[in-house]
């Protein structure tokens, strides 16, 4: 079976903490997800997302704190939201499926959401197939 490669940019305060909690709770999710911990979802540069695609990633997940009030840095999550929104639109114009990028708000307690999201995302990408066909 085709195993997609997925980079997950996880914000240090919420999504990465949720991933830690998932570990502590021994909640299993696919190994396709390679985590990269960032200070804030607002630090995730679209350039880095595209770099992931250029280097063989088939999907990119960005996990941040819930809007409107959970961001450790007040509004980094909104910055991420706005950027990803345009980026997806831009990707579409280039003929690349915008579904290959997924932005999710995952609080430090939502280990189960993290698991659900990652499983679901792997399935989505599996259906889309490899980016470079």
């Amino acid at each position: 079976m085709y195993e997609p490669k997925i980079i997950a940019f996880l914000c240090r305060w919420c999504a990465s903490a949720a991933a830690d909690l998932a570990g502590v709770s021994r909640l299993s999710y696919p190994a396709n997800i390679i985590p990269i911990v960032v200070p804030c979802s607002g630090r995730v540069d679209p350039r880095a997302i595209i770099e992931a695609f250029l280097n063989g990633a088939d999907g990119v997940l960005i996990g941040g704190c819930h809007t409107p009030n959970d961001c450790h840095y007040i509004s980094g999550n909104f910055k991420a939201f706005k950027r990803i929104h345009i980026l997806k639109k831009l990707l579409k114009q280039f003929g690349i499926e915008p579904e290959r990028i997924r932005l999710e708000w995952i609080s430090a307690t939502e280990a189960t959401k993290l698991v659900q999201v990652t499983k679901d995302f792997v399935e989505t990408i599996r259906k889309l197939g490899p980016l470079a066909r």
Partner: protein
Amino acid sequence: MSSNKPKLAIVYGSVCGGCDVSLVNVGEPLADLLTNYDVIYWSIALDGKLHTLEKLERIDVAIYMGPIRTELNMKLAKLIREKADLVVAYGTCAVYGGIPGLGALIKPSTLVETMKSTVTTTPGSEKVVKSMEKEGLKIPPLTNQCLPLSVVVEPDVLVPGCPPAVENVEKLIDILKKYLRGEKPVKGLMLAEPRSLCEECPRRPKDMSKLVIPNIYRLHEAVPKEDKCFLEQGILCLGPITRAGCGHRCIKANMPCAGCMGPVQRVDDVGLKFLSSLASALLADKEKELGEEGLAKLLDKIVDPQGLFYRYTLPTSYLTKLVLKRLRK
């Protein structure tokens, strides 16, 4: 007609002619320069033919204008890099691909279909060409993409601008004069400022407080004011990411910058960078109030991000590379 003067060739990709005119427009300094060079090829002004160029073993300076769209363009680009000591990428098309670069990712077959389907084109054209003449009438086929010179070969000097501003053309002429004395510029010299248009924008406010984009208006939705930052009026302007050095001519005409000078020094992909800047500054003070839905609605007013960000630089985008990589596989 051999001469001891250094040889200069001005060579075209799929040009629009604007670069030629911009060169002619500098007037005396150009006339002055041309007397010091032996101009062997410049098809708009002189009668040198392709075979003359091909026969030469060495050219001193070659100026390339226009994007590479056909195999002939490609051949000439490689030819001048091979023969010329100093290669100048002249104009935005040669440096970044320019507006024709917007067609970089369109399949030639699509282009054919479009041509066939314009409202005035007669379907099923007759043939007047006899089959035996076909061989001699072959046109150079299109390249798969539309590329700037700078992607195909490594130019020595780059002069962005659509077309280059007179001041920068004068700088180039200076460089070519110095070259006569044996001074060669640093490789990859970009005749533009490293920083953005904002630095020299006449609309820079006295009060240097935050720049918030209050909304997004298209040009049919708002009449731009003549003295206020376009972005602060909600009119999308590429000034913050575009190299200065153009004399902010569009701003003077009360039109927002469209980015013809290409991105500032450290940015290699206008779209990926500027979308972040734009998104960040858009309603930065009302994010919580509007929420995701409200913000998304406003962001959707950017109807053509590709055409906005990459109007002049599409072939150099990482997204273009990504698409091509995907197609190659």
